[in-house]
């Protein structure tokens, strides 16, 4: 017996909870988000200290990675062992604009783990032998990643979409590690890190008594710096045209292509984000339906907008059967042409809208995820109305507006694009 389709219910607006916010007695901005039903806790110290503050490539990343490789009174091995004894995991990562020192642990060990963390990173002593090992290991990991054709295509793209030589497009080369000395690392630590004021994000669940204890503890931490680092960097003119890394071995090509886009503060941002989802942001997107589901050229193709402070760029990415490289590029442009000229039918538009709001809700099934989206919003200095504005735009957008967005921001002629390929054209 077959059963007929259930009627689709409208998805109610999400009442998006904001994390609790406060300024601690030590002047630190503090955000806290509960996540009922777990004893897992995550604390993140986010320093506004990314690559844009460094004098040498790799300096910021190297310094943050070295933070737990030796401190006054503790060797690197002792530090690793003591975190393990508490069952705690660390995250030391950097990007262009900020750096994260994160710790993941069980509520019962939270204070001990954070005390250890702060003691270690604020008394780091950067032993020479650990630095040599770190460099050797990082360099060899980089060399391994440079074997991957998607990595090569994407690095070439990143460099040229912001203008070759611009700090926003810098990627680490293996030889950069040879240029980087322990003095550079120490300089960055002393001149930048120690004075830098982090924002603090706490997610997870303790009993309410525990939580108050944690907040009191964090409010008394005296080692944090006072300086709010700020710096704005803009991209240069991008390279228009084709760039090939010729690779004979392998039967696939990695393609990355794109153009600059308006940034996240631009009035068209929300509409652009919706339009891009329709174009290449989900399984039902035009690109996936055409290149994968109709033609079978690829396992996956996507289009994303990447944000760089006030700037942004589009990145369309796929790994395709090599002989269809040219054809795939042509089909991508054809899809853009269609989106500029043919009205998107109502069913597709309704489906897109439901999908976007449904997925948004699905991703927020716990406090950690909720904190993540707010954290990104806060770090990008977006207003607290950002998400409601997005859903207002989603309700309002229609096929005329979508066509307009594609005409305005997605060129349909190849000459406007930077196209980076690793593999071959055919």
């Amino acid at each position, binding site marked *: 017996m077959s*059963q007929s389709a259930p009627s689709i219910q409208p998805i109610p607006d999400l009442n998006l909870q904001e994390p609790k916010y406060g300024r601690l007695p030590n002047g630190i901005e503090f955000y806290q988000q509960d996540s*009922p039903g777990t004893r897992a806790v995550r604390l993140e110290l986010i320093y506004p200290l990314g690559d844009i503050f460094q004098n040498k490539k790799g300096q910021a990343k190297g310094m943050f990675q070295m933070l737990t490789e030796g401190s006054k009174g503790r060797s690197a091995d002792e530090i*690793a062992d003591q975190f393990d*004894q508490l069952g705690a995991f660390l995250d030391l990562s950097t990007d262009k604009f900020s750096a994260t020192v994160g710790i993941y642990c069980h509520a019962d060990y939270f204070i001990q783990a954070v005390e250890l963390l702060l003691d270690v990173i604020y008394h780091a002593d950067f032993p020479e032998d650990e630095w040599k090992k770190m460099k050797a290991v990082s360099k060899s*990991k980089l060399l*391994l990643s440079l074997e991957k054709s998607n990595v090569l295509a994407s690095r070439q793209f990143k460099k040229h979409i912001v203008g070759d030589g611009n700090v926003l497009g810098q990627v680490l080369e293996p030889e950069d590690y040879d240029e980087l000395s322990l003095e550079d690392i120490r300089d960055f630590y002393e001149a930048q890190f120690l004075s830098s004021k982090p924002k603090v994000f706490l997610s997870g669940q303790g009993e309410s008594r525990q939580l108050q204890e944690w907040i009191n503890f964090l409010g008394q931490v005296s080692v944090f710096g006072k300086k709010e680092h700020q710096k704005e960097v803009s991209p240069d003119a991008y390279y228009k045209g084709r760039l090939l890394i010729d690779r004979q071995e392998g039967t696939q090509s990695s393609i990355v292509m794109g153009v600059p886009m308006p940034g996240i503060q631009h009035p068209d941002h929300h509409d652009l984000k919706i339009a891009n989802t329709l174009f290449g942001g989900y399984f039902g997107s035009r690109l996936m339906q055409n290149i994968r589901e109709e033609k079978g050229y690829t396992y996956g193709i996507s289009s994303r907008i990447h944000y760089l402070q006030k700037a942004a760029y589009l990145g369309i990415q796929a790994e395709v059967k090599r002989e269809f490289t040219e054809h795939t590029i042509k089909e991508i442009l054809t899809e853009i042409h269609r989106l500029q000229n043919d009205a998107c039918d109502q069913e597709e538009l309704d*489906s897109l809208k439901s999908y976007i709001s449904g997925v948004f809700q699905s991703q927020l099934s716990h406090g950690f995820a909720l904190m993540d989206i707010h954290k990104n919003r806060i770090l990008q200095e977006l207003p607290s109305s950002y998400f409601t504005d997005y859903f207002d735009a989603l309700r309002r957008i229609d096929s005329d507006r979508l066509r307009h967005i594609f005409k305005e921001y997605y060129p349909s002629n190849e000459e406007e694009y930077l196209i980076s390929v690793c593999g071959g054209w055919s």
Partner: protein
Amino acid sequence: MIQFEEKILHNGLHVIVHHDPNVSIEVVNVLYKVGSADEDASRTGFAHLFEHLMFGGSENIANFDKELQKAGGNNNAFTSPDITNYYDVLPVQNVDTALWLEADRMRNLSFDPQVLEVQRKVVIEEFKQNYLNQPYGDLWMKFRALCYERHPYQWPTIGKQISHIEEATMEDVKSFFNRFYHPGNAILVLAGKLGVEEAFTKAERWFGDISARDKYTRDLPQEPPIGTRKFQETSAKVAADALYMAFQMPGKKDAAGYASHDLLSDVIGRGKSSRLHKALVREQEVFTQIGAYVTGSADPGLLVIDGKISEGVTLEQAEQAVWAVLGDLADNGLAKNELEKTKRKALTTQEFGAIELLNRAMGLAEAAYYGDTKRVNQESEIISQVSELEVNQIANYLLRPEKAAVLYYRREHN
């Protein structure tokens, strides 16, 4: 603690419900008890190809993804050597849409030849992207075949070779469906906002009338224990020599045996304070990275050591260095507090793993697959109970050259 209730419908479908009042969504997870190990040795990669075809239209529905997207849902699936798992996540108001979709494709597929042709191409591109066009991408094809001579775990889920995917016919597709895709061979989990009674009512309403078919009983050739060292060499254009070693260990059906071996693998090679990392990356600088982990399968699986070797060190020297570390553990046992800290890390991992509703739903389905849904809540307890004596005995017995499969992955210079 993951609260749940379970029922078996009269057609054999195992239904599990987990209510979480803190979310506004529902996860619909359907596990089919079929994986690449159930394939014929001359038609490998089929379970995974079939997973793709499950999205290509069922008896009454032309396009699975479109219908789910309209309801605000998203979905995905994966195939392992043991199972094929499908999940849909959507706002609870529209949970019926996901149930309607899953029930319709459990009932029957549309078997559209065009879908087979396109998905065959897509899977071949997936094969190339993940297994051929990646550095060390063919490793598991070779290493599985070395570790397993009899058991069908000897081929990866993507398949032994592209030709098996190229040769798949619609007849193969139909008979695979009839054999493995029916209520008695599936586990349905509803996890999220829905109340328990309502969830069971919906499960009965959508799946209750699907006909039962002949039960599939898995009977796979079992792998004998490794008795003498197995060895193979391969080479490719990669950036560094790599060493792979594996020891046979209990499958997940044996929860206690699995947990003790899993902890042993953590002691050997998880994180910066593990034995291998400390001795061979930090002290001796023989490897630039090395780790140990377990494969986690239903039948006996593998405890794997996997390392990239430093420039100027030979594979032979690197292997010797690993044996020195393993030999010390095998002969002298654990250090004070070593098991304690390893357990604590494992428990933190458990706690973080259970945050995501989808993980809880999949955890329930997996526990049921291994024969006891309650196990989903016992893992922490099982880990806590592993004794030092037990881990020492395993290390002493297992970490010996004659018990290992070893593969050298050599770098070809240009």
